Structures are given as structure tokens and as C-alpha cells.
């Protein structure tokens, strides 16, 4: 009887082992050499964000408004024919990133937000005071969420930022000036260091987020019933009632930001 049990146990172990395990996820086994700290990667993607947001704010919102284009916080509502304001453009990018497999979090806040729900509290409020003084990024580890967190100054980089926020009916501060630290972006990532592949994935998810929200804006334009539709193609609002296509918009972002990002990636490689 003992022999039978032993034979059965050995047979079971053999069968079990002969199946092989479930393969480890590729991303966990391939290219696992971590070459960037999370701080470096978040600085890279924050830089891309600065360039993208400035381009959108200046060249699309600022110049577009001069052409009579509308941008509204309620742009998604059925009865509103408008594009997203820069803060909502960023929210759109953040939403798209969240849908991707990349575990990157992106948020925008301020000490004087238009929407009270975006006011910094706790640790973020404390760090934001320092950011307002020196405009330098702040890094910390969020113990509760177990996420590495970085905050970067969000500057009033275009006239449109200043005029819209100063004149907004819900504004909590009406003396913003060009160059002021109006708020900060907060970025989160679960690992303390990233492989080359993971870094590129973070940058790609941000770029895809930009395209996604910009495409949503173009879809909104296509559905305009009463407002005049800008022509979508190679031209920009400064030339008239035009909007660049998503490819043209992203190309411009790449031209403006790719050198800095590439420099980091190439050096690490």
C-alpha cells in the first residue's frame, strides 16, 4: 500500500511538473535591466507635457480664440460646441493613460483652482508651497498608495492662461501674471526604477494620450451643428479658421520636445 501511495505521489509530481508553469510575463523577464530612476523618467515625461500643453494653449486655444473658436469647461456637454480648455486637455491625456497598461498617474492641481475639487491638500499642499518658491520639482513616496510621486510647476506660459483664469466667474484669484506658478502637475508610478522599454512605454502612453484627447476635440468639431467648423489639415489657427490634424499636432510636439528626451534616452542606452 505504501508503495502504491509513493508511486502515485511521484506520478502526480511528474504530471504536475511536466506541464511547466505559467510563463512569467514578458515585460518582467525581458529588458529587465533598469536604467532610469523613476525621478528621471517622470522629469522626461513632465517635460513632454510642458511642451504639449504650451503648444495647445498658445497655438490652439490662444490663436483659436482670436479666430472666434470656442473653448469651454463644459465642452463635452451636448449643447456646447467648443474645445477643451488646457486643464481639461490634460485631464483627457490622464484619462487615456489610465486606460493604457502603463501604470502612470497624472493629475493637475493648484492652491487657487477654478474648480474647488482641484485644490491641493495635505502633503501636496505643503510641497506646492516650495514649488512656488523655487519652481523645482518635488519627489516623495506616497506610502498609502505605494506610489512614487513627483510634482512639477505648471506655469502661466501663455496669455490665454492668465486672461481666462483672471476673468473666470468662479476664479479664486484674479491677479495672475504671465510666468506665475499657477499650479502643479502630479505624476505617480509604482516602481523606483524603469527599464529602457518601460521608459519608452511611459513616453508613448503620454504621446498617445495627447493624440486621443486631440482626436476627441476634432470629433467634437466634426459634430458642430451651429458653429462654423474649422478646416482640419496642415494649417494652424494663426493662419485663419484652421486646426492642425492630430498627426500635424503631434509632429510639432515631437519637434519641440524630442531633442531633450532623446538626449536622455541615448545617454542611458
Amino acid at each position, binding site marked *: 500500500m505504501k*508503495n502504491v501511495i509513493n508511486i502515485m505521489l511521484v506520478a502526480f509530481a511528474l504530471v*504536475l511538473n511536466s506541464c*511547466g508553469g505559467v*510563463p512569467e510575463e514578458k515585460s518582467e523577464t525581458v529588458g529587465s535591466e533598469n536604467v532610469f530612476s523613476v525621478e528621471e523618467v517622470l522629469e522626461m515625461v513632465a517635460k513632454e507635457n510642458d511642451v504639449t500643453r504650451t503648444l495647445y494653449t498658445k497655438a490652439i486655444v490662444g490663436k483659436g480664440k482670436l479666430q472666434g473658436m470656442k473653448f469651454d469647461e463644459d465642452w*463635452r456637454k451636448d449643447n456646447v460646441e467648443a474645445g477643451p480648455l488646457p486643464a481639461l486637455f490634460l485631464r483627457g491625456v490622464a484619462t487615456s493613460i489610465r486606460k493604457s497598461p502603463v501604470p502612470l498617474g497624472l493629475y493637475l492641481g493648484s492652491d487657487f483652482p477654478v474648480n474647488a475639487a482641484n*485644490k491641493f491638500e495635505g502633503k501636496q499642499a505643503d510641497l506646492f508651497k516650495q514649488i512656488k518658491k523655487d519652481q523645482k520639482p518635488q519627489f516623495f513616496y*506616497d506610502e498609502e498608495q505605494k506610489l512614487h510621486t513627483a510634482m512639477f510647476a505648471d506655469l502661466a506660459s501663455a496669455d490665454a492662461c492668465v486672461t481666462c483664469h483672471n476673468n473666470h*466667474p468662479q476664479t479664486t484669484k484674479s491677479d495672475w501674471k504671465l510666468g506665475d506658478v499657477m499650479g502643479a502637475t*502630479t505624476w*505617480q508610478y509604482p516602481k523606483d526604477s524603469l527599464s529602457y522599454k518601460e521608459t519608452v512605454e511611459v513616453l508613448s502612453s503620454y504621446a498617445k494620450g495627447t493624440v486621443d484627447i486631440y482626436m476627441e476635440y476634432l470629433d467634437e468639431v466634426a459634430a458642430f451643428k451651429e458653429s462654423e467648423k474649422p478646416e482640419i489639415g496642415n494649417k494652424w489657427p494663426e493662419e485663419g479658421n484652421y486646426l492642425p490634424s492630430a498627426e500635424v499636432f503631434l509632429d510639432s510636439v515631437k519637434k519641440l520636445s524630442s531633442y531633450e528626451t532623446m538626449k536622455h534616452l541615448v545617454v542611458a542606452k
Partner: protein
Amino acid sequence: MFKVSPLRKRQFLGGILGLVLGITMFYVFTLDAAEQYVSIGPMNTGHEELSCVTCHADAKGNLLQQIQSNMSHAVGAREHSVDFGTQDVTVDNCLQCHDRPNDRHPTYRFSEPRFSDAIKEIDATTCITCHSEHHGERVSVASINYCMNCHQDLSVENDPLDVPHVTLIANEQWTTCIQCHDFHGNHRYEVPVAMKDTIPLKLIDGYFKGGEDPFGTDKKYTALSELEWLKQFEDK
């Protein structure tokens, strides 16, 4: 081939019987037709027609592979453990059908550090905090005063409501929020400007329990059906 000691006969027969019963039960309960008996409770409103696999996807590998992987993980021969049987249900499962660009309270927003105190009260980073499945209802929160966790400082410029929002907040009338505003903001309807026209709490309560929708049936986005959900994968 081998002899069973007469003293061990009962144990042997019991073992064989247990094995046969176990295999039979495993076979029967994993049949599609047995889904309703396996479910731990009635599906929530709108989910009645869904099959288990819509949320409970099979875990990677077969059962033997999963056992081996987890045993390897237990003895340190493997970095990660694997799901056993079915994959864990996460927010991503919910969003595959319920993701909407107009969601005014998307779960991901609450991962930001400034919501850390609020999510200790109500963990809005995950759908199941309010929409616990298998209870045959819509919303499963204990109390509908949850807005108080984030909106204590709210004030509305040119407030259109006959009783200003600041007054409602000062009086801690937190159950009044939902009488005008649906949490996810997906309904098209006229928001009342007089408290007397707001949706009675009784109707809200009935709605949460799975009853008629007091915000109306005109929605900007509707969740995917199982067929539409499946189609997403065909297209990929």
C-alpha cells in the same frame, strides 16, 4: 495489483468515493448550465444577462500549471504568483463596458494623494466600493452622504438653487446632493432649481436597490452588452 488491508477497507472506499464525487462536482459546477448555482448571489441590475466569464476570465495556464507556478512561488523559485482558476476582477474589467469620457468621478482620479483621507472613508478608487456585485441591486453604499468626504468647501457662484449650496452644506444635508446630481454625470436631464422639485429620497433609495431610474432614461453613453463587449476582442 495491490491488496487493501481489511482494516483499511472503509478508508479506501471513502477515499475512492471522495475522489469520484470531487471530480463529478468539479465537472458539473464548471458547466455553463450550472452558472446560476455557482453564483454567490443574484447579479446586479443590468448585469442579469451576463455570463460568468464576462468578469471572471479564466486565469492563464491550466490548473496543473497554476498549481506548479504557485508552488514554485511559495518556495521562492519564481518571482510572481499566478491567478488560480479565474483572474481577479478589477476596475479594468468594469471599465471594459462602463468606461465613459464624461465620467465626472472616474476611479483613477482618487489615487491622487490629496484624496488619501477621503478614500479612507469611501474608497472611490474601485467600483465595487459602491457597486458590490451579486446583490441584485445597483448601488450598495450604506449611506448616501458620501459627497461630504470631498465637497465640504463647495460654493457655487450665482447659485441657481433656492436653498444655496453653502446652506445645504452648512446644515450637513449631504443626502440632498444625489437628489439633483447623479454621481457619474451620465444622464441628460434638467437639474432642478427648487428644493421642492428635487428627486425624493425614497425614489433614490429604490433606484439604488435596482428600481426605476429617477434621473430618466436619456443617457449619453450606455454600457456595452456582452455581445458588444465580445466584439471588441474580435476587432482587435
